[in-house]
């Protein structure tokens, strides 16, 4: 591992429509363990933003506490970032979004941050349909405090100390669907082919987009007996591949008919996915929950875009806030002045 990130740029490095290279979307050097799944997710976020031609300064990155929550330092160094307190990222993201609805909000959290200490805020962020992409980097354990079980650890999974977990795991994807998230996907840090388009679709979604990304902890939860190890997860994941087709781009990928499904996103872009099961209607909440449960009963974990509600009302729609970001309103527009105060005083006599 090197400690200085090379500043060298290949003169012929490809650029996106903004004229920026992929390197322009990178962040500082990761201090996570070598091989950590989280770094792959950071790389996928970089790819997604580069490919979507997002201006980094139009993104705000938010996180809680834990290994996952350190990662906003490792991508999009041109974006403002807020590393808040443990389990409380959703509320900070909500406030930020209320102040300026025009930025793109990416939240990164972990399984401890989301499924334990922050379960309430996570659920309420989802039910308000806050317009953000919320990525859970899910490794089933507390890495930064050396490997304690988290609430997403599967029943029967064995931890580093050799203890078998007997509690029921919290499935953040299912929970998100239940409480009102309008875009729910699951993926694997080791499956870039699926993860990058899924992040692109999530970023293009208007509303609360949750991505539960299984991201093995190489140090504390990658051993035999762990259900969140690279090896084990590879053996149980049931992949629904998908393509993300930006606005106005020609669709090239092709899948066998019957299980292929195309979803037009709010912004005009398209998600094309290949389902495992033709009965799975990804625009139907109950059907999505059934598909997840069905695979689980087979000992499998379904990954891909699980559920989407394309035309939902996000928080600003619910509140009826003006189109213009609240943080651009001027003193003149906001302050009623002394004349109005005279009328207030008159009414209080």
């Amino acid at each position, binding site marked *: 591992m090197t400690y200085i990130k090379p500043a060298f740029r290949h003169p012929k490095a490809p650029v996106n429509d903004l004229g920026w290279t992929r390197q322009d979307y990178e962040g500082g050097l990761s201090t996570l363990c070598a091989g950590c799944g989280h770094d792959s997710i950071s790389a996928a976020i970089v790819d997604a933003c580069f490919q979507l031609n997002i201006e980094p300064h139009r993104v705000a990155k938010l996180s809680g506490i834990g290994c996952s929550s350190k990662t906003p*330092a490792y991508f999009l160094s041109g*974006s*403002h970032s807020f590393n808040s307190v443990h389990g409380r990222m959703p*509320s900070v993201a909500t406030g*930020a979004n209320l102040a300026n609805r025009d930025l793109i909000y990416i939240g990164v959290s972990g399984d401890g941050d989301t499924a334990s200490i922050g379960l309430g805020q996570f659920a309420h962020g989802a039910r308000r349909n806050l317009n953000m992409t919320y990525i859970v980097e899910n490794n089933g354990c507390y890495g930064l405090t050396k490997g304690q079980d988290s609430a997403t650890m599967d029943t029967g999974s064995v931890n580093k100390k050799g203890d078998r977990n007997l509690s029921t795991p919290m499935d953040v994807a299912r929970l998100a669907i239940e409480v009102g998230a309008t875009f729910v996907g699951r993926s694997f840090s080791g499956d870039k082919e699926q993860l990058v388009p899924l992040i692109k679709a999530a970023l293009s979604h208007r509303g609360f987009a949750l991505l539960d990304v299984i991201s093995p902890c190489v140090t504390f939860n990658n051993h035999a007996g762990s259900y969140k190890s690279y090896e084990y997860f590879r053996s149980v994941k049931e992949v629904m591949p998908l393509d993300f087709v930006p606005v106005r781009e020609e669709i090239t990928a092709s899948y066998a008919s019957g299980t292929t499904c195309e979803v037009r996103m709010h912004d005009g872009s398209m998600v094309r996915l290949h389902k495992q099961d033709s009965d799975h209607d990804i625009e139907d909440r109950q059907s999505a929950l059934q598909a997840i449960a069905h695979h689980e009963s087979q000992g499998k974990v379904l990954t891909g875009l699980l559920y989407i509600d394309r035309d939902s009302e996000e928080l600003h729609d619910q509140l009826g806030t*003006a189109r213009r970001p609240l943080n651009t309103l001027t003193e003149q527009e*906001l302050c009623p002045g002394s004349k109005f105060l005279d009328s207030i005083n008159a009414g209080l006599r």
Partner: protein
Amino acid sequence: MQPKQAINDFVIKFANVNGTGSASANGMFAKAIFRMGIPVSPRNIFPSNIQGMPTWYEVRVSQDGYLGRRGGTDIMVCVNPQSMAQDVAGLEPGGYFVYDNTKPLEPRFLRDDIHYIGLPLTEICLREYTDARQRLLFKNVIYVGALAALLNIDFTILKDLVSDQFKGKERLITPNIYALELGYQHAQANFSCPLSIHLERGHKVAKHIEDFDNILMDGNTAAALGAVYAGATVAAWYPITPSTSVVDAFDTYCRRLRIDPGTGKKNYAIVQAEDELSAMGMVIGANWNGARAFTATSGPGVSLMSEFLGLAYFAEVPAVLIDVQRAGPSTGMPTRTQQSDILAAAYASHGDTKHVLLFPATPAECFSMTVEAFDLAERLQTPIIIMSDLDLGMNEWMSPPLEFDDSYRYDRGKVLDADALEAMTERFGRYLDVDGDGIPYRTYPGAHPSKGAYFTRGTSRDEYAAYTEDGQAYVRNMDRLLKKFETAKQLVPEPKLKEAEMETRNGAVFFGTTASPAYEAIEILEKEGICIDTLRIRSFPFNEDVEQFIREHDRIFVIEQNRDGQMRRLLLNETSVPVKDRLIPILEYDGLPVTARKIAGMIRNFITLGNVTPITRRAQAEEISA
């Protein structure tokens, strides 16, 4: 015993059952006195309940303009049989006991040193109304009508108030005025009106109130209006007594003032959060992103918000928090007042933290200090906590009119916008003390395509916002935060000094709602020859004026409404008081607003006997000294 004689100077208390509509009738009674030009201070003493429990409404009438509680009751209007025993016992000798004599009074409620005024309220209601709800509601209006005759309230004012109250529901005006007349005529026909205790319009009033341009307003509404004037666009909150009406009022004003005329959309956002933690998180997120945002809560909410207050302090994010204090600890007495969050607010969160506190004493200050709080929060990039309380927040206070200077401009603090960033040649250091005042420059997310982005965090960082565990960098940052707190001393509202007529080495320090009864107590004592200079603290950190006041007095009574003398402890901690004993705690914490008599009694005892009577024995002592 002869009835007490008093014109424009008495305490009347109503004993009601909550949920029976008494609050609006009682409010009308107080407002009528206010409109007669006589200083009045009404207080709701209510239970944490919606229907069926005892509730009281105490109205002090004071021609001298004393707005704090005096102590004692001269007229008791008893409409609630549940609390009759204590209501009879609470009346001062020579006072009047007004009750419903539809049924004869039990002998155990008879005292020979008070005077009984029986009104057949139930009988009149049974005769006049068939609907059970109407019988309940109009009973309140009938006794207000009777009191108008007994106390000489201008009847036309009452009629106007009824019309004001039912604007939009005009069909209710006539029946309400009819009910007022039922009571009025009964009293006129059966008693010699007015009583020896009564009101007189134009009688010499208002020593302390310069002109009668005053308004009657509660502190929570005033604070909400302050937030509107300060340009707050985001409010996040969780319902909790006694702060709920802050955001309710903000909502009401915004619906009137902040709707975009073109689209009908809102130029504000109010979110009811899932808890106080989240409410504060939203406030921090919005402020970080360049909107002015606030929340309102009470003690239990402050406990939950402490984690986030520590983050905002350390990460240097503005935030405005209105703490309407109630009796703690824990759930405490949710509908009773106290000033007991002082230390919890001043030092909220783990680690080394200090927060800027403002202490309003009147609705006018709730308004002006809330406006100021947003400036301070952005100037200092830190949370500002406005320390109101239930007494100020939920009761209507006679207050000077709200004022706003149109030439005033918001101070949005040190923010580098796109142009400033563009022009910048040196590297942007988010936590760099460029000006030597401890306050760094910040940028809003999205401000500039390539400059000014930084990482906000609750972890230690260097001047350029990069994570570091270097002890030196950590210390530099912590010391800069302390320097910033020093800078705050020059920016926060200064204390108000009031010197005694004769030179004295006695001082008294108080703040918030303790001010009114404390000023009155000091005047009571001055008449007895005990002179005391006073200092009303209006903010923390304490500036040089506070230090000087402590230096110049040998003994300083610190008067406050909590058990532990929290302001006294804060003064001991944060000023250079040479001897601990110099600060003498004068404390009240039974949940009711402290009275002038109690304060005067405690200080008198200390000066004459050398000690302060403990609260358990104070009730008797106070009655004796009265």
